[in-house]
């Protein structure tokens, strides 16, 4: 009997050890909640429509699974601006005649044009590994694809030519009005999409359009003469063009300058504290 107890104890120690390693040694990644189909319930402005495209792009569309800094697929930061040029590329084999049509076509017929080096293995860049996003697991609706197209045009800085959805597909006014304030720095960083451009320990998968925010914990105090670390960071968030870090690498006007209107003071303080490494106790348990 004593042997049985020893064996049971031994096995339990092994298994609890494995579980503990999983809990402590592995970063906690919370899988995205099952996507909800975007429903429009009222009149919609272009700004809201682009925001909807942004949500679909980073959420249900799962675009960033591949179109990210790891370059599983090409980055789409400027695709809205490049779409017209692609139509003239001799390798283009689609039927679009405008940039907008091409962007929509690339969602449902990704092989119409494959960026060099990103085709399926052995196809000489003639077949895209990307799936038709209107079908399968992603299954975007027409409105959602239009919203993504609008978002891609907007994020590339070109005029949005996509027509707004008709009256029978109204806006989700209630949902737009119900934007909740972030409860911690991680949420705030996600809410204001800092992860799209920046990397930071609190950001699961960051972009590289903007500088890495990690070193700010030690460098913020010396970034601008006469400013404390906190003063500098507040300015950098509210007036991002006041000083461009590494102007050769990062462009002006890339970072939104309307955070003063969109961000609460609490949210801004949470972000600043996080960048200065003062959020450890709160974030440590996450």
């Amino acid at each position: 009997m004593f042997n049985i107890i020893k064996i049971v104890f031994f096995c339990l120690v092994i298994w609890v050890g494995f579980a503990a390693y999983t809990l402590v040694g592995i970063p906690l990644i919370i899988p995205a909640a099952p996507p909800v189909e975007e429903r429009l319930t009222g009149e919609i402005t272009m700004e809201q429509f682009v925001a909807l495209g942004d949500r679909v792009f980073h959420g249900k569309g799962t675009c960033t699974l591949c179109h990210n800094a790891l370059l599983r697929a090409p980055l789409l930061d400027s695709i809205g601006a490049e779409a017209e040029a692609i139509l003239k590329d001799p390798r283009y084999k689609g039927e679009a005649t405008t940039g907008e049509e091409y962007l929509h076509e690339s969602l449902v017929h990704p092989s119409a044009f494959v960026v060099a080096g990103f085709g399926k293995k052995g196809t000489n860049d003639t077949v895209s590994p990307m799936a038709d996003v209107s079908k399968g697991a992603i299954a975007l609706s027409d409105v959602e694809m239009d919203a993504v197209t609008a978002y891609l045009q907007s994020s590339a800085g070109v005029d949005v030519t996509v027509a707004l959805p008709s009256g029978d597909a109204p806006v989700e006014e209630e949902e737009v009005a119900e934007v909740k304030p972030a409860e911690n720095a991680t949420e705030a960083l996600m809410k204001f999409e800092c992860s799209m451009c920046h990397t930071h320990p609190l950001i699961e998968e960051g972009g590289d359009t903007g500088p890495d925010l990690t070193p700010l914990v030690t460098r913020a105090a010396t970034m601008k003469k006469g400013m404390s670390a906190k003063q500098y960071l507040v300015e950098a968030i509210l007036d991002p063009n006041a000083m461009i870090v590494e102007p050769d690498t990062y462009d002006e006007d890339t970072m939104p300058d309307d955070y003063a209107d969109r961000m609460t003071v609490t949210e801004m303080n949470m972000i600043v504290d996080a960048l200065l490494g003062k959020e450890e106790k709160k974030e440590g348990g996450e």
Partner: protein
Amino acid sequence: MMQIDSIKLHLCLGAGCSVSIKNSFGKMFSRAVLILISLFIISGISTGKSSFLADSLVSPVFASDAQPADSDGEATADGEAAAEEGPSVWAPAPPPKLEASDYPIVEGWNARISVWIVAQLHLFFAAFVLGVPIFVWVIEIVGFITKDNRYDRMAHEFIKVAMTGFSLTASFGGLLSIMLAVFYPDFMEYMVSVFGKTMLIYALLFFVESFFVYTYYYGWDSMNDGGKKKMLHLFLGLMLNISGMSLMVLSNSWAAFMMAPSGLGADGAFLGNVWAAVNGPLWNPLNLHRFIANIAYGGSLTAAYAAFKFISATTPEDRAHYDWMGYQSFFIAIVGLLPLPFAGYWLTKEIYDYSQQMGITLMGGVFAWLFIIQAVLIGAVFLSANYYIWCSLGRTNGADRYKFMIQPLGLVIIFAFLVWFTPHTLVMTSTEMSQVGGTHHSVLGPLGVMAAKNGAVNLLILSTFLSFQMFSRSNTEVVGTGFWAKNGTAIQIGLYTAGIVNILALSIWSYFIPAALRIGLSIPQVVTTLIVCVVAMIIDMLRNRGTRDIAEMKWGNMPIRSQYSLFMLAGSFTWLMGLMGYCRSGIRQHWHVYTVFRDNSTEAFTPTLPYAAGMVTLICAIFLLLILFMFWMPMLASKKKKEQPQPDSAVEAG
């Protein structure tokens, strides 16, 4: 066949009976070849059986005049027209779009957790009772051919252990079916509409398997005449395995369909061709992966059983017997373990080919970190396997010549293990991040990439194989003067050195080339490992022609702690199976049937890794209690038998 074994061991078993135990590397190799050939036969016959099933499934399952499918799997116009005639005629229908309210709530029960626990327990037992009869049958054949009664006795004991497992497997299978019907009625309705015919065959196969299980087990002694009756018994064993494998491939088709559905129209409606639904892109990779894994798992559990009996043994004879049994089981588990990654690669490749999104979710998304845990678990398996082999040197008489190798081998294995599970990115606070100087540590960061890991895992396999070779020759000495007897070891040292240098050089080189090329370098590294193992084994066979046994193998001369490495092996396997089950099922994300039938229940979310780890631990704990019960049952039967007077004929001759 070459007679290359030269170790003879005498072992007292039971009431003064003596059994001669032969052991040598050559013998092991011959046995391994025999095992592989036999496994090939079983899988081949099972595939043939599957093809027969396929023929019967090609015809539409529903009214034949209603909905034939054309060669492309599309519903024909006739079928559609017929579908409009009336409700009695079947027509393809897409899966329903469910709401959360469509999922019944049973007070006090959490549907997903309940199904998770019961399904995993069912799979644990199923893997065991499907794996054990395979190698029991093979061992019985080995005993029949070699006329060595020890194998027959061991095979009988293995199947005895598995007998309780059959009823537990069936019980959990029944419970799972009922739970699915209660908690997920719409899903089950859809699955039945697609697989109804195979489900009926599945249920009928239970009777077939039961018939062969009982005749095989209860007919063991009465058919053990070494002649025609024994051959009939072997035929029963073969049929037991074929029926078991058929059950497995049928149920695999349902799981594979849920991951990569086939035989459906664009809207997810079943087109009527059951074979098209069964023969999906993941079906055969899953069949092969589970077939091999079942053998490895069965071996590890019987090794744990033998270890348990070894620890509990009160006589030297029993210790010797269970030590030998534990070693054979351990050998089976390792033989099953080594090809498993290759079957896993095939399955993963097919997942990627089917859906790149699913593939990236698996390896580059939410589940990517799971593979670090998998590396830790497999590392634990390797560590325990090596430890067991090193302890096994105590059984031999010439081990002192090789003991100096244990320490360096241990260091290499631990180092390789540490490299293998070093993550590329680390979990750090902002302060730690600034102290480290970024998201990647300057020293540990480079060890986290595949360049280092490929080298580490190949060194791990090579070191394990070297440990095994060390053990296999530790009871022999060179007496011949042939070329291989004199130079075999030196050539092997050169071979290992060249192999290790090549693996390390490729690893270092891969730091300096693009990722796409780097991935390709893993192939020559694996090929190097395989070449070293195969060539070293052949050299050992040639060398053994000029060797002889130093003395008899001292079975039973193992420290108690060595047996805990067998528990470690079985425990790691079990937990790993549970974790990978979560992974396989989880990559469907919020779909009952991927991209076709959405899960809209309140628990459609993908659980986090720690949550899954907790669940797996809980399930393993329940499984442990049940497995102890399973091990206890044959002991209870043996105890009863011992209390009764034994007729002379029952005493086994040595």
